[in-house]
């Protein structure tokens, strides 16, 4: 994250929690419709936003629905009617939206949704892991992960542009780590309202239900005849989202001075060993990388920002010189070959002539704290794998009681 530069964006240095930053971003985007249901740790986002509505700061139609299933259904209806629509959720709330997530993406509606990552019950837990959004990785939604409150704020505006891009037209979720970021206060450089308004622009979708001159059918039956074509077109749209992500990031950097892409490479260019990580733990791991570098160990890090579309070609290129990679997953995929980030990155590397060795660390489930020592111990293991040339175990549980 770079400091405020003298850019046209007229930025203001503020102290905000992750939830406050996302609610502020929503105020500045000023969607036409927000339909939401509260769930910890997301609740504050829509609670704060609802005060913006009642204070008359936004003209948004706020729909206090009775469940997340209804929240997403209302967004589907309003987005199809030509209204920029948003909601927000966490964990079990996302799970309750499940069937409508697929309807939103299959109907090609660019709904944007902050998801404050939280473990799925049971046992009941309110703290961070990524099992909620990782479970939704095949739901056809674009997924942007955030390391801190600043990135959460910045990702919101970019998500709107990516989702609504005429080549894309897919819904997007922007994640933050529950409590760690959502309830943690940090310095956030906020943009001027006018700058945001110009950046996100007007909500324009090619067809909408209320355009009576051009009547259309939304949500029709498509059986053996056309369902397959719909899905392949959706897959193509997700692939087309990739260059759009990069294009929007470059435009945003010009505006704010803050650089975004598919991922961030931290001291990776000459690294022998590296971790791949997403979310708030990337920050902690960067401190470990710096400490190891002081010892002369060539440690590096890759922080994945975009999980869907999965940037496998760029990832391959970025890690090709690394000897050993430790992929950190904050969710598990029980008894498969590792967590979701691990299995996808490992598959992406299959065609490389010279592949890095790769192992998986599943960590932080249910909010288990991951500290400097744990990450350092993972790096030490990567070094011993480098010496032995052998990965003994695919999945390692980091910081769990034996």
């Amino acid at each position, binding site marked *: 994250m770079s400091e405020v530069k003298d850019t046209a964006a007229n930025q203001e240095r503020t102290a905000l929690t992750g939830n406050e930053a996302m609610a502020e971003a929503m105020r500045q985007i000023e969607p036409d419709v927000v339909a939401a249901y509260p769930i910890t740790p997301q609740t504050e986002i829509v609670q704060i936003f609802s005060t913006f509505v009642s204070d008359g700061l936004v003209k948004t139609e706020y729909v206090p629905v009775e469940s997340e299933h209804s929240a997403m259904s209302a967004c589907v209806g309003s987005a199809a009617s030509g209204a920029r629509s948003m909601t927000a959720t966490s964990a079990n709330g996302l799970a309750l939206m499940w069937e409508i997530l697929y309807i939103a993406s299959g109907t090609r509606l660019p709904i944007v949704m902050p998801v404050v990552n939280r473990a799925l019950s049971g046992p009941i837990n309110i703290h961070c892991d990524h099992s909620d959004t990782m479970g939704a990785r095949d739901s056809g939604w674009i997924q942007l992960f955030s390391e801190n409150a600043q990135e959460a704020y910045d990702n919101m505006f970019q998500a709107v542009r990516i989702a609504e891009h005429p080549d894309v037209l897919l819904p997007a979720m922007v994640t933050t780590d529950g409590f760690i970021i959502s309830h943690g206060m940090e310095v956030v450089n906020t943009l001027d309202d006018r700058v945001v308004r110009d950046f996100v622009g007007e909500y324009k979708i090619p067809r909408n239900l209320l355009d009576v001159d051009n009547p259309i059918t939304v949500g029709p039956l498509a059986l053996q005849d056309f369902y397959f074509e719909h899905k392949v077109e959706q897959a193509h749209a997700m692939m087309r989202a990739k260059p759009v992500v990069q294009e929007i990031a470059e435009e945003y950097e010009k505006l704010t001075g803050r650089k975004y892409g598919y991922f961030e490479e931290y001291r990776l260019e000459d690294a022998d060993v590296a971790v791949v990580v997403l979310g*708030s733990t990337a920050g902690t791991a960067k401190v470990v990388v710096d400490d190891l570098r002081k010892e002369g160990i060539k440690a590096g890090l890759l922080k994945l920002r975009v999980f869907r579309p999965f940037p496998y070609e760029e990832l391959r290129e970025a890690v090709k010189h690394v000897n050993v990679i430790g992929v950190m997953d904050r969710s598990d995929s029980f008894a498969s070959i590792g967590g979701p980030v691990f299995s996808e990155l490992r598959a992406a590397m299959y065609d490389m002539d010279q592949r890095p060795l790769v192992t998986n660390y599943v960590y932080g489930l249910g909010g288990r704290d991951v500290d400097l020592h744990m990450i350092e111990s993972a790096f030490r293991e990567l070094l011993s794998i480098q010496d032995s040339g052998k990965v003994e175990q695919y999945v390692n549980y980091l910081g769990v009681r034996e």
Partner: protein
Amino acid sequence: MAEMLEIRWHGRGGQGAKTAALLMAEAAAAAGKHIQAFPEYGPERMGAPVASYNRISDEPIRLHCGVESPRYVAVLDATFVGTIDFTAGVPDDGVIVINTTESPAEMRPKLGLKSDSIRLYTVDANGISQETIGRAIPNTPMMGALVKATGVLDLEELLEDTKQKLEKKFRNKPEIVEGNLEAIRRAYEEVQGE
């Protein structure tokens, strides 16, 4: 400040430990620092022991793990003495500020500190807030005491920023804003150290 400062606040649900950490962070941010403020969340209920944390630094803060060895500890409730180990992880050059009517000399033998070089401060934050705000809400006076004991912030900067924040929150109750500012100032003056 070259190092990153870490503060741990101990209180009971309702005493304002979380708010103290947030106000402290906002004041430090307004003074140009990089900050973090985060509470430790559990099943929240009035009266249960809670903790919250600050990190303050001149450099951007990347750590997103818990605070293990805070140099500064603020204890909002004297009943934690002997029941909760609020000294855990405090280094030898640490500073502990306790809300109590007892003096540091009376308090020290009760704590079993691992090092004599840990500095101890006490202040009657309940008494001060009772007199200035009208109820025993010790968080803002403890901020004043902590600033005096540690020098992490300038008193006037803290007062100015807290005033702005409270004026927003208590638009129709100017007496609450004034009471809190007076509480911070009095605790700053009355805190005793050894």
